[in-house]
């Protein structure tokens, strides 16, 4: 299993919940339990809310890519407006950064490519 689901949303607060829904649908498919799915939704909401608050002069939407591996979900945010980079300031946005780092396994706040940000979570098999 190695699937990509993409969701393009307007820069509007009303659609953050759509991102959450898709996240839970996708995370549920991988087999994360409810509490972890909730964590993933919370982390994604932090990013979406920040993106929506910043917005863009050049475009009116952004994209969320959900990459699914058998045991991992990777969520990448991107936008045509590549000025949207390093959107979280470790100082001013400490609460959000703490939350994302605690709830996800791997958070790249500033990516080396044209993406806004990416985060991932690995399924822990309890044997």
């Amino acid at each position, binding site marked *: 299993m190695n699937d990509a689901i993409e969701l393009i949303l307007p820069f509007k607060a009303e659609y*953050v*919940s759509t991102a959450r829904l898709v996240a839970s649908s996708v995370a549920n498919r991988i087999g994360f339990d409810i509490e972890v799915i909730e964590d993933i939704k*919370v982390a994604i*909401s*932090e990013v979406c809310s920040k993106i929506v608050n910043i917005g863009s002069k050049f475009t009116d939407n952004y994209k969320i890519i959900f990459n699914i591996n058998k045991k991992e979900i990777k969520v990448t945010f991107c936008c045509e407006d590549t000025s949207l980079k390093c959107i979280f300031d470790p100082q001013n*946005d400490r*609460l959000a950064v703490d*939350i994302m780092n605690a709830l996800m396994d791997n958070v790249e706040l500033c990516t080396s490519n044209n993406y806004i940000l990416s985060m991932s979570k690995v399924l822990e098999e309890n044997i």
Partner: protein
Amino acid sequence: MTGELKVVEEIINDSVKISLKGEIDICTSNEFKEKLYKIIDANQKDLLIDCKELDYIDSTGLGIFVAALKKAKQYEKKITFLNLKDNIKKLFIITGLDKIFQIN
């Protein structure tokens, strides 16, 4: 779904108790911030925030509480949280806010 927050204010002896129902997120946080600040300034009392029916809060919401605490401290008042749900208590712990607020 999202975007719903009910705030009920009630005076109990020397405190104001605020009961929150719904979600504090990008859709509700601006309005909530104004409401909360007004309550603090108007009453100048200790604040009890009952979160029994608060389902979700994001970092912006937590930030509002931090700012509210600063405000309350100007009046030498404190803020206490009641009945935090597990998912929300978790966020207080992650962010270290459990150490600056009283959580019952």
